[in-house]
């Protein structure tokens, strides 16, 4: 089917109003970048889900990172978008003069640094979903093989599925899901089958080009109209139905599941990944980081993360919370829905 026909169909859609959730922050960014909302009927509402790992990280985690990096014998490596996430005593960026933090581009930098400076302990702020977990696993596998002991992971690694289940349980008005492309590369698409059947909603995996997203929206709408609730994979050049067996094996070898706190959603059993067995020695204190900051009454972070409201419906949006001076992490990250809305809609 030609993309023009899909656009025509979606532009002229006049059925019942629909709410579709794009789970992944990269999809949210792509939807804005390509002006997708402008191409479809206002009756099809796209809402953003909890798919930004930075945004669902509780304050206690940031505090643990700041504390770790304050020790003169420690160096903390982190991806750039964690730098500005506020903790109880400010962000890593706010504490820059007191902490030893380096922005990394790959977790494997930890191995080089640990070898170069054996007296130092190299910390890695490991935040992410299934997509990034295997890289941390592979890095530790290599560290263990080389007998490197001075690396510690402070993890806030989460799996997306339990959060989707939470949304299905708590927010019945979502009519269908644009499933995360990158996460599905690892997990495959069958992981959505059970939820699709149980909750009677379509789950469609999409890539990140405008055409991919429009095709995905189209398939969800058509499924709903036909009364179907299937899992579909529209990202076949990257996503295998069974996922990436090697990556899944690394995850199982290095990590075990445990309870984790999601900002906005609360504690979800079995949604966190923690170092297991022999790898547990590399843990820099990741368990039990559940405390989240007391949010001001006006902050609607929690409602934004689960798609109950659009970011610009939060009273603090642009008024006390902006990418320059963010209150919630959704405003910090390039993948956070508030930040994306601010940069595009403000």
């Amino acid at each position, binding site marked *: 089917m030609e993309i023009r026909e899909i656009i025509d169909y979606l532009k002229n859609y006049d059925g019942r109003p629909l709410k579709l959730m794009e789970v992944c922050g*990269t999809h949210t960014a792509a939807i804005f970048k390509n*002006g997708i909302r402008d191409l479809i009927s206002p009756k099809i509402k796209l809402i953003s889900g909890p798919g930004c*790992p930075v945004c669902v990280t509780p304050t206690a985690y940031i505090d643990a990172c700041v504390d770790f990096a304050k020790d003169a014998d420690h160096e903390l490596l982190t*991806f750039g978008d964690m730098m500005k996430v506020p903790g109880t005593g400010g962000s890593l960026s706010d504490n820059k003069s007191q902490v030893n933090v380096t922005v990394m581009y790959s977790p494997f930098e930890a191995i080089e640094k640990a070898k170069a400076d054996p007296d130092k302990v190299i910390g890695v702020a490991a935040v992410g979903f299934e997509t990034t977990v295997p890289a941390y696993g592979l890095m530790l596998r290599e560290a263990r093989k080389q007998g490197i002991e001075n690396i510690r992971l402070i993890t806030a690694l989460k799996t997306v599925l339990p959060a989707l289940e939470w949304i299905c349980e708590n927010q019945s008005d979502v009519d269908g899901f644009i499933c995360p492309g990158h996460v599905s590369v690892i997990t495959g698409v069958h992981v959505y089958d059970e939820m699709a059947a149980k909750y009677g909603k379509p789950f469609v995996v999409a890539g990140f080009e405008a055409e991919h997203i429009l095709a995905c929206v189209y398939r969800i709408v058509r499924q709903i109209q036909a009364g179907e609730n299937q899992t579909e994979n529209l990202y076949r050049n990257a996503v295998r139905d069974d996922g990436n067996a090697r990556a899944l094996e690394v995850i199982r070898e290095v990590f075990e599941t445990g309870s984790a706190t999601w900002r906005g959603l609360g504690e979800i059993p079995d949604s966190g990944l923690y170092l297991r067995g022999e790898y547990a020695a590399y843990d820099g204190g990741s368990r039990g980081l559940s405390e989240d900051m007391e949010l001001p009454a006006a902050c609607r972070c929690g409602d934004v993360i689960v798609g109950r409201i659009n970011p610009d419906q939060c009273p603090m949006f642009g008024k006390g919370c902006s990418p*320059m001076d963010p209150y919630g992490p959704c405003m910090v990250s390039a*993948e956070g829905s508030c930040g994306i809305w*601010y940069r*595009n809609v403000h």
Partner: protein
Amino acid sequence: MKITMAHGSGGQSSAQLMSDIFGKYFNNEILGRMEDAAVLEVGGAGASAEAGASEAAPGPARIACSTDSFVVTPLEFKGGDIGKLCVCGTVNDLLMMGAVPKYLTCGFILEEGLDIDILDRLVASMAKQAEEAGVKIVAGDTKVVEGKGGLYINTTGIGEIPAGRDVSSSNAKAGDAIIVSGNLGDHHACILSHRMEIENDIRSDCAALGDVVGALFEAGIHVHTMRDVTRGGLGTVINEIAGSSGVRVELEEEAIPVHEDVRGFADILGLDPLYMGNEGKMIAVVPAEEAEAALAAMRSTEHGKDAALIGTISEGAGAFLRTRLGATRRFDVLYGEGLPRIC
């Protein structure tokens, strides 16, 4: 509140710092225009009044003045070095006001431990670029501070604005066309590749744009606005023009030139070429009927060979992008410092 790297990004945080601190104390009508270079009238104000009877009498001479400090890691990169950069940057700021760059001064802050051989190479590069750009370096200063062998350079430039040229950020008008001089994001991607130790063929676009600007005026184009597209990227510059000129700008996404290597690099890191920095790119805003001639003039030059017509100006406000599939979306200035994303 403390200074963060975002204050140096050229985006919204930089603008905030300008207005909150420097603008508060240095307020005057020349600085208040916030152009790439200040336009100053010197000498002849009284003389021209006296000679007012004669229509042929020249008015006061107009000169453009701009200053810029250069801090880049690494000091030498594919396509340039800090020496070349500090000449090109200031020369381009003068050119953007329609001025002919004439003189530069330079201030060096050297950190203890800097290799003299490196300094020699960088200064030689600076001299070579100054000669090519037709500017004389006429004053200088050197200070040494403790540090890790780094180097910072400030350059100030003076240029003459020929009579009849009136180029300003606030001169863009409804009906004008916007032309960019070439591919976006090369410098940003090159520097980031160096820092991340990624091997690729991306070279900085670091260049003085005298040939491009010269060609426009030689072709008799009535240039309304020129801006060099540096930190903050095209997105930020376009928003600033929309604001200064009180107009609506609409860009065609597909017309914006980005090299495929840079596009791939940006995709992987989650960066948008619209907000990536350049050191040898400019946009020209010209009357629509002169757009084709202006494009041809720019394309005839070395530094404008990839020039492209990217958008139009109409009445209204704000900056908009017409996407590949025909959607229209608004875009804003750069917020924060454009950090590579996590996943």
